[in-house]
């Protein structure tokens, strides 16, 4: 029997989880980071499209937890645990955090990509989740997919070969 897998879209500043029937997908990552967690035994995974490094800079009333690296990771983690994932089995892969435009002296906001990556790594370290695949930095955009039946993480970009982690 051939099973049709469904694409589960993750919007900018959003996160989602799915089981082995689905493929998590987020498009057009620039300075943003596509952060994924995966439980290889249960074949369930989650993905966040992280936009900013830290919720400490937030000035919004209703905090969107999926938007910030430091808040998205715990939410993703808890969602997967609710679905039965074991903390000891979770592994992380991520991509993005590019610097699309090269500027001289345009300030800190231009370095937002590397800062997003650093913040994600810090969070993973604190939660003792191993980062087993990474395609970050550079100056180009990425579209990423996590196939939850295999844990394969696919990265597509313009004028570059498809990468699999």
């Amino acid at each position, binding site marked *: 029997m051939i099973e049709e897998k469904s694409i589960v879209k993750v*919007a*900018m*500043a*959003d996160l989602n989880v799915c089981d082995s029937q689905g493929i998590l997908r987020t*498009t*057009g*990552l*620039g*300075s*943003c980071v596509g952060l994924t967690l995966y439980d290889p035994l249960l074949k369930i995974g989650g993905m966040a499209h992280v*936009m*900013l490094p830290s919720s400490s*800079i*937030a*000035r*919004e009333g209703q905090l*969107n937890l999926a*938007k910030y690296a430091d808040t998205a990771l715990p939410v993703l983690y808890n969602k997967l645990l609710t679905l039965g994932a074991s903390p000891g089995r979770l592994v992380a892969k991520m991509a993005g955090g*590019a610097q*699309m*435009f*090269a*500027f*001289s*002296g*345009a*300030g800190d*906001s231009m370095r*937002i990509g590397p800062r997003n990556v650093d913040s994600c790594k810090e969070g993973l370290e604190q939660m003792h989740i191993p980062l087993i695949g990474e395609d970050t930095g550079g*100056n*180009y*955009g*990425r*579209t990423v997919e996590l196939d939850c039946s295999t844990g394969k993480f696919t990265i597509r*970009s*313009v*004028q570059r070969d498809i990468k699999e982690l």
Partner: protein
Amino acid sequence: MELFKHGKDFKMDVLKEVGNIGAGNAATALSQLLNKPIDMAVPQVQLIPFEQIAENVGGPEKIVLAVFLRVEGEAPGNLFFIMTPEAGKKLLHTLAGIEVSQDGVFTEMEQSAISEIGNILAGSYLSSLADFTKLSMMPTVPGLAMDMAGAVLSYGLLQFGEMGDDALLINTTFLEGEYEVEGQFFLIPDPETFAQIFEALGVPLEHD
């Protein structure tokens, strides 16, 4: 946004006029550069979720050629000049008489020329706005990228990101008929800038 709770339609109209003046001057500058008439569409002012902004240029994965400038001064914000790569090639060919390569790759010379055109147009966009509002607006050195629209435009959303999940965008399309060179200006003022603009133009911030 809190600021648009009162008199939203009127404030949106004011911002449309802001886009009209800015892009109108930029279109004139382009028209002089090309020595060709340039048509301009009525500006659109949109308060929309981040995810939808890239839909204006064909979706987050659509490949665009973008010149990006950060605007500094009393009314900070982000300004994009966006074209399809094909339109960029046509512009170079028409304007600079450059014998462009057709393989979708931009040589260093071509990139530099596009940046400079973007710089000139953005400069005239901003200087007309600065004259109109009497607010200082200084463009930074332009950055150029040819990549997925979502990846490129996300840079204009960082300031709004701290405030919520929507951004306010002033979008103007212009078109050069004969060669079908189409481009778009996206002005995304920082959230705090709106109060500055309204105050400068004498728009009351509160209505009852």
